[in-house]
């Protein structure tokens, strides 16, 4: 109940944030912009629309997750609004969970709007839509869940700006983890240990990237999808727990 009210309040805060609308409009423009490449051959054109569309949804969703996410907690601490929450009979982890759920809801709705934009473009251009597109959208949402949790984790102990930088770094490295492992295997000693350690600790965000499957119309088996979902949820749970532990110990001063 308390978690839910905090989530609803966070969602309402997001809705009254202009940044969100700006990002959403940009995303829709990007998705629509693929129409200027109409002179390509038909197969290439269809692939391009899907590629740009999914890429835009992913990119702008991550931007929203980061730039709205970092503000979730650090803004509350900087503006001291948290004083009136923590002084109520609300445990700190309930506050964090509420904030997280609020932003997740915002992201879910945004993704739905962007996906609707993409589907509209696809429909206008008579591009056939396969089930794998929806699976890819699902894994994109899973990635948002992780990125939001990363932003939340950083914002429990650092400023908004630092959190943004850290989260962006995790996002970029998270997509390079397969390379990290490959690179590490070519090295010796400490370098190898560090890179392999990073491979196992950092989220492997490439697992959520099914764009290739969509553009080449390759289906993803349900079993694989469940594995990806389990990985995403477990990783998110781990991040939220870590954030709670850190948040529980800190002074609001």
């Amino acid at each position, binding site marked *: 109940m*308390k978690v839910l*009210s905090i989530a609803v309040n966070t969602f309402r*805060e997001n809705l009254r944030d202009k940044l969100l609308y700006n990002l959403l409009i940009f995303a829709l423009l990007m998705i629509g912009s693929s129409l200027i490449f109409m002179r390509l051959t038909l197969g290439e054109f269809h692939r391009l629309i899907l590629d740009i569309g999914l890429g835009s949804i992913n990119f702008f969703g991550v931007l929203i997750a980061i730039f709205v996410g970092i503000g979730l907690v650090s803004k509350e601490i900087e503006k001291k*609004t948290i004083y*009136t929450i*923590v002084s109520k009979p609300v*445990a700190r982890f309930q506050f964090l969970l509420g904030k997280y759920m609020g932003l997740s809801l915002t992201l879910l709705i945004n993704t739905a709007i962007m996906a609707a934009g993409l589907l509209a473009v696809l429909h206008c251009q008579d591009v056939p839509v396969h089930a794998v597109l929806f699976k890819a959208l699902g894994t994109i949402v899973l990635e948002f869940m992780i990125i939001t949790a990363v932003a939340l984790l950083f914002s429990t102990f650092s400023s908004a700006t630092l959190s943004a930088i850290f989260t962006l770094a995790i996002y970029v490295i998270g997509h390079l983890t397969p390379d990290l492992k490959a690179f590490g295997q070519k090295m010796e000693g400490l370098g190898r240990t560090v890179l392999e350690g990073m491979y196992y600790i950092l989220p492997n965000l490439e697992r959520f990237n099914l764009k290739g499957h969509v553009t080449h119309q390759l289906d993803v088996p349900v079993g694989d999808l469940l594995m990806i979902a389990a990985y995403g949820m477990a990783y998110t749970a781990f991040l939220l727990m870590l954030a709670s532990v850190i948040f529980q110990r800190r002074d*609001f001063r």
Partner: protein
Amino acid sequence: MASADEPVVNIQQLQKVFRVGFWGRRVTAVDGLSLDVQRGEVFGFLGPNGAGKTTTIKMLMGLIYPSGGTATLLGRPVADPSAKAKVGFLPESPYFYDYLTSQEFLRFYGHLFGLLGSALDKRIDELLDLVGMTHARDLQLRKFSKGMLQRVGIAQALINNPDLVILDEPMSGLDPIGRKEVRDLILRLKETGKTVMFSSHILHDAELLCDRVAMIMKGRLVACGQVSELINHGTTQEVEMVVDRLSPKGIEEVRPLATKMVLHGERVMAVLASQRQVDEALDVLRAHKAKLVSLIPHKASLEDLFIREAKGVQQATEVHA
């Protein structure tokens, strides 16, 4: 639930050390503070800027963790979130969600206490009325003046019908009328059996309102007790006497009795330190047929105590250094 004679707020040897700056220099904001607030009283928590009032209150509300000592609210340790179920709190400067309207704002805080539905709506209406903000029910908080924020802040602190209300400088930022209203509100809370603890450096307010006060300086308790006790302790009742047409000889007779004397044409003003001196001076006036204009006892105030204690702390630190 705490029993009737158990203190509503119990603070024992509370300490807070902040680490500031790059090198983690230690700043002791609260230094072994112990005090009790009893059920049903209005308790003033006084001290100059930087004395550690806000730091203490933040420890009570679980916003920061004590470096040492313990504190309970309504019999429960402050670290337990359920200790706050029957506590209302107004932070030092009101910082609230400015994208909410007053009504949404109060509803949100009501939800955090598990209040719902029409009971909550009714409570919100009552509170907006109580703090005189009914007209701003649908206005976003970003459009509020400081005084209006303070008012909804107080309403927010009362949403759960608390047994104990802790207010950090509730009168700050309010005009004289607003201050009077807050004073009346605090007295009304007391009438309904609630305990109020508030911090302030406006001593006049504390004098008018408080059953007991604690005065802290540099994180330490320097005085605690009933206002009248504290004021009269160690002070002599000075009296200011104003006289007209006192002859030069009479003036010379009064002069040794007075601790201070000012001549103003026909008029003489003398400060007399005790009752004996007042009596003797009056005898002189009668003997010289002078006209007594006024005889006013100088009422000692909390301010005198405050300044005296501040000087004491100052000297103590100088001796130390």
